[in-house]
Each structure stands twice: as structure tokens, then as C-alpha cells.
């Protein structure tokens, strides 16, 4: 048995010098790597771990199909891939359930605003919520690795922005930030805009920096 395996391994590495392994074999490889990892694995990393000349992206298409309707699924998370149990079987998993820390209402709202308005500055979050954002809220979200700092805005003061992470997408089973529920409708309704207040409205998060740019920045983030 082990001899057989050794031979197989050898032949694989030998082949790799000349041509990539057959697609069925590449699919097996992707399967093993994704299976073994609790975290999502990027295509780049898959390719770097598989023998030279492999096409993980193509292998994943086959693999995803193979797992359709199974108890375990192949899911896309941002630009990475992972295997996750089918959500309809969650009831079997009481044992594996991890008590997630209760998020405060402020934290949940802040998270949603970051997800839907990203990249968004603290001042913009405050403008939408109408209250100042506490440091603890942002810290908690950062600590959970659901948000991270994005690029600075090119507005006076160059404020930092927040964006959601791959972990966020993974946690909520989203392939992409564009798949956020109701995103299109909200945008169509103009509710993701940052309209400057006419005249002197009382605004929070004073010194709010050029909100005009936010929609621009957003399209940048969501378009590709």
C-alpha cells in the first residue's frame, strides 16, 4: 500500500516538471487542501501548493459541482475557497456550535453600515447613525476580524476607512460583498448615498470629510 503511494507521489512530481497532472487529479488536490483547512484558501495559495502548471480555478469549478447537494459544500469566500457543511444540516451540529459573543446593537449597526457603505470613514458612520461611534465598538469588530482598515480617503485629513474582511464574508456565507442582501435595492433607493445636509443641519462626527467621495470609493470596491 505504502509502496504504491510512494510510486504515485513520485510520478506526480516527475510529471510536474513537464506537464501538469490530469484535471481529475488536480480536483483531488484542491479537495484535499480545502478539506484540510478550516480557513478559506485563496486560488493563489492553492496554485502555489499544487504542482507546477496546475489550474486551481478550473479544478474548483469541477469540485464545486461534485459537492453540489452533498452534506459538505465548496463555497467561494471573496477570492478564496472553503469547504463548509450544508446550512440545512446545522441542526445536527449542536456539538460543534460555538457561542458567538453577543454583539451590541451599536456593533451590529456599525458592522452593517461598514458592509453596505464600504469603504466608509468613522465620520460617515456617525453621520448615518446620528451618534458618535465608540472606540470599543470598532475595536470589537476589528478584533473579530470582521472589519479592517481600508485605504485612506483622499479628502482633507486623509481619514482612514473601514471595509469588511474575508472572515466577514465567510461568517455570513457571502461570496462577495456585492452579494449582501438587498444591496441593489438600497442603492437604487439612494439609501447608500451620503447626501450633504442642506444648510446647517446638526450633524454628528463634525469635521466630516468630503462625503462626495464615498460613493465613488464604493463603486470602486464593489465594481470588480
Amino acid at each position, binding site marked *: 500500500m505504502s509502496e504504491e503511494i510512494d510510486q504515485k507521489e513520485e510520478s506526480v512530481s516527475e510529471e510536474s516538471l513537464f506537464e501538469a497532472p490530469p484535471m481529475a487529479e488536480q480536483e483531488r488536490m484542491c479537495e484535499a487542501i480545502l478539506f484540510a483547512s478550516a480557513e478559506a484558501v485563496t486560488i493563489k495559495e492553492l496554485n502555489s501548493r499544487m504542482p507546477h502548471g496546475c489550474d486551481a480555478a478550473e479544478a474548483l469549478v469541477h469540485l464545486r459541482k461534485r459537492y453540489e447537494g452533498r452534506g459538505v459544500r465548496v463555497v467561494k469566500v471573496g477570492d478564496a475557497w472553503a469547504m463548509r457543511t450544508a446550512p440545512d444540516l446545522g441542526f445536527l451540529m449542536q456539538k460543534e456550535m460555538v457561542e*458567538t459573543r453577543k454583539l451590541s446593537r451599536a456593533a451590529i449597526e456599525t458592522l452593517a453600515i461598514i458592509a453596505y457603505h464600504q469603504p466608509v470613514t468613522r465620520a460617515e458612520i456617525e453621520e448615518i*447613525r446620528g451618534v458618535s461611534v465608540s472606540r470599543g465598538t470598532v475595536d470589537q469588530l476589528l478584533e473579530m476580524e470582521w472589519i479592517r482598515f481600508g485605504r485612506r480617503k483622499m479628502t482633507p485629513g486623509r481619514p482612514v476607512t473601514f471595509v469588511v474582511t474575508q472572515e466577514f464574508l465567510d*461568517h455570513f456565507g457571502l461570496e462577495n460583498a456585492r452579494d449582501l442582501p438587498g444591496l441593489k435595492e438600497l442603492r437604487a433607493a439612494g439609501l447608500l448615498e451620503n447626501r450633504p445636509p442642506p444648510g446647517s*443641519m*446638526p450633524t454628528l462626527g463634525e469635521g466630516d470629510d468630503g462625503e462626495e467621495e464615498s460613493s465613488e470609493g464604493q463603486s470602486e470596491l464593489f465594481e470588480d
Partner: protein
Amino acid sequence: MSEDETGSIQDDKVAERLAAEALIVDVDGFEGPLDLLLTLSRTQKVDLRKISILHLAQQYLAFVEKAKQLRLELAADYLVMAAWLAFLKSRLLLPPDPTEEGPSGEELAAHLAFQLERLQAMRDAAARLMARDRLGRDFFARGVPEDVTRVRKITYTATLLDLMQGYARLRTRDEFRPFVLDRESVFTMEEALERMRGLIGFAGEWTDILSYLPTGWEADPKKRRSATAATFAASLELAKEGKVEIRQSEIFAPIQLRKKDQDHV
């Protein structure tokens, strides 16, 4: 987007009254004036787009009045909002004055309505987000992730500054410490040469050069290496001078030497 979707509205009149009272007592429970306005707007039971901002402003002002009567301390931003809403109210009530500058009451009201609608939209979005199937609750990752062995490839690096500092350090140190070479475990070729010149007269037969190692240098590998190298180099030197002959039967075989017999030449 209407308040019915949130499911938080209570049709029961008693419950409504209780809620209204709770508003007063629980002023700290609001996340700012906008949150309070949003909560008050629910009593209008209409789509947020059709809400009467004038009515809402009156409700808010009444709330603030009541809070004052109860001597509840309201944070400054609640009072700022109250002042602004009073201003908005007057604008909405009075016929527009064409000489007046700035945005009209309608524009201001429209913006406030937009803010409320946007906040409500974000709350709905948040609720929908949290209701999604979630990792660790509805679907699960691999229970025993296999370790990925990290094959470490170490590359060393240094900067020019490191190099210069290193050199400077050496040169500076020389000033404090007269240069002493640690020769404890170094057997020089000169020493070996001297030793072998004395011994070579006795080497009539082929002898392994290792037997020329100075006594006491065999045990310590460091010393032995140094002595072997020096003895070998000295042997070559002697061979060059024509004093000895060297032979080795094959690679890695012992190297042997003997005194060059003048008769054999």
C-alpha cells in the same frame, strides 16, 4: 422598509402607552437623537417616506419637555436637536420668506426624512445580515484542520550600514584591546614545518602523516583539524623542497611520507 417589516411595532394600545412611558424613563437607551426620532416616528404608523416631519418635530419637542419636567438629564446633542427641530418647525409653519437665505423648511425636512429612512434601512440590513446562515451556527468549518507544515526557507540579509557598523566595531575595538589572536587551537604551518624538520630524519619508511601530529592535539576535533591541516601543508612544503616524498594509494586513503633517500634519485 416600512415599520411593519421590523416587526417591532406593537398594535396593542396598552403596549403602546407603556412604550411611550418607557421612552421617557429609558432615555439613556436611545442611541442618540436620530434613534429617538426614528422610534417616535413609528407612532405615526406610516411609511417613512410619507412621514410628517412637522408632526415628528412636535413629538420630539414634547418628549424633551416631558423629560425636562421629570428632571431627566438629556445629553447635549438631544438639546441641540430640539433647538434645530424648533427652528425647523417654525420654518415649516410660517409662509416662506423670499428674502430669507438658506434652504427652505421643506428641504430641511426632506433631508431629515432621508436620514431617518437611511438609518432604518441600515437597521433592516443589519437584521437581515444577522439572520443569515452563519459560520459556527448554521454551517461549519472543518473540525480537525490539518496542519500545513511550513517548510522554512531562511534567507539571510544585512544592510550596508550593518556591514559598516560591523567593520567600525572591529576597528574601534582594536583601540581598546591590543590585538591578540586566539591561537589556542590553531597549529600554524610554520609550527608544523618546524616540528617536521626535526622528525623527518627518522622517516625512512612510509609513515602516515597523521603520526606527525603534535601530542595533545588529537583529542579536540578543532585542534586536530588545525594540526592535520598544518602538518599536511608542511609536508607539501617539505616535498617541494625535495626533503620528503608523499604518496596516497587512492582518494581518502592515508597520506604517507618518507624521507627522500638521496640514493634513490
